[in-house]
């Protein structure tokens, strides 16, 4: 999803005890994720090109290990690719999807946001334990900076 190079760094501020886990069972569009239309926890994790722009979730700064994310088969939706996808949705979508995409463009630009789209195999994971399981998994891909 967009060119990923090791020159582009992504960050996220989150809790001291680690990255807030995604809900890997909750599928949604990029715009639904960015405006939180389907709730606070879905299958994506937001990251930012700047250390200070995503800080809603906690005070501790983490850096995404982009190379390891890509090597493990997950996808990084680069900031510019994300903006283009949202613009496309805002231009060609109708009704609710258009409305959500318009606001999502504003928020993604403001936060210089990219998205990690996790591709874990969850077929053998108990649904009730999936968030706790995801916490252990996604934290491997972030390094604590502060």
């Amino acid at each position, binding site marked *: 999803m967009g060119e990923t190079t090791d020159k582009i760094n992504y960050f996220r501020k989150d809790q001291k005890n680690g990255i807030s886990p995604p809900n890997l069972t909750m599928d949604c569009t990029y715009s639904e994720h960015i405006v*939180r239309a389907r*709730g*606070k926890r879905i299958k994506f994790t937001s990251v930012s090109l700047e250390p*200070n722009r995503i800080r809603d*979730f906690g005070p501790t700064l983490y850096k995404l290990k982009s190379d390891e994310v890509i090597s493990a088969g997950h996808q990084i939706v680069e900031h510019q690719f994300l903006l283009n996808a949202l613009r496309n949705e805002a231009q060609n979508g109708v009704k609710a999807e258009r*409305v959500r995409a318009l606001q999502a463009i*504003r928020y993604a630009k*403001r936060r210089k946001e990219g998205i990690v789209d996790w591709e874990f195999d969850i077929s053998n994971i108990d649904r009730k334990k999936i968030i706790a399981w995801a916490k252990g998994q996604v934290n491997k891909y972030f390094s604590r900076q502060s």
Partner: protein
Amino acid sequence: MDSLFSCRNCIHNCSQTLSLGFGDGFCLKHDSVIENPYDTTCKYLHRKDLPYFVVDEGVREHASEYVFFTNMATLSDKKPLSLVRYSERHVWDNRHFSPIIHSLSQYHRMNPSWVFVQNFAGSADGIRAITHASLVRHYLDNCGNWKSSYRLILALLQEIHKTPYIADSELVLNEGYNRDEIKEDAFWEIIFSRLSALQEYGWHAGNEEITWITDKVNGSLTDFDWNSLSMELEDIVHKNIDKY
């Protein structure tokens, strides 16, 4: 903590947005001063940035998280908060008088309340513009039926294309963001809140055309080009106001 779910982004706290309205807020739902609106929320949250019906799933999930709090609570760690009644004493103790909060604290004393709402119509000031759009939405949420808010919506329609003025002193400055970025955000927060008010009215009235008014404006909205958008909105309103 997700600021989209904070009181700053709730229509019941009429005079603030995520980027606009420094200091305390005031909640019409709880009839209480909000001392830290960025870190306060409750189960009645009604988002300002988008029409209710396009984010209802997320808002319902949020409400379920706060359902067992009687009043407001902190967003960061879900601690209950006591209500703070607005009074001269509160102003004195805090050494800060806000005319808009003073005014909003009188809302429940006005009868009928639509008289109070219409007094905010037609102002170019950004704070009063967001307050007007939010009050209309609050009224729509609570009124008997959609017909009783018809005149209030007509007033909002007549100002939807007008440019709100935003004073630098009213901006909420955050570390890592420059003033121009925040000012632009504040501006679009007002515009989208006005559009959302119209769309929510369309939803109540069962009018598909107004509900999806965002489909009627062309590229100017996607490009965030206010000059073109304001002309398009003015044109739409003038051509269609009789139908509404």
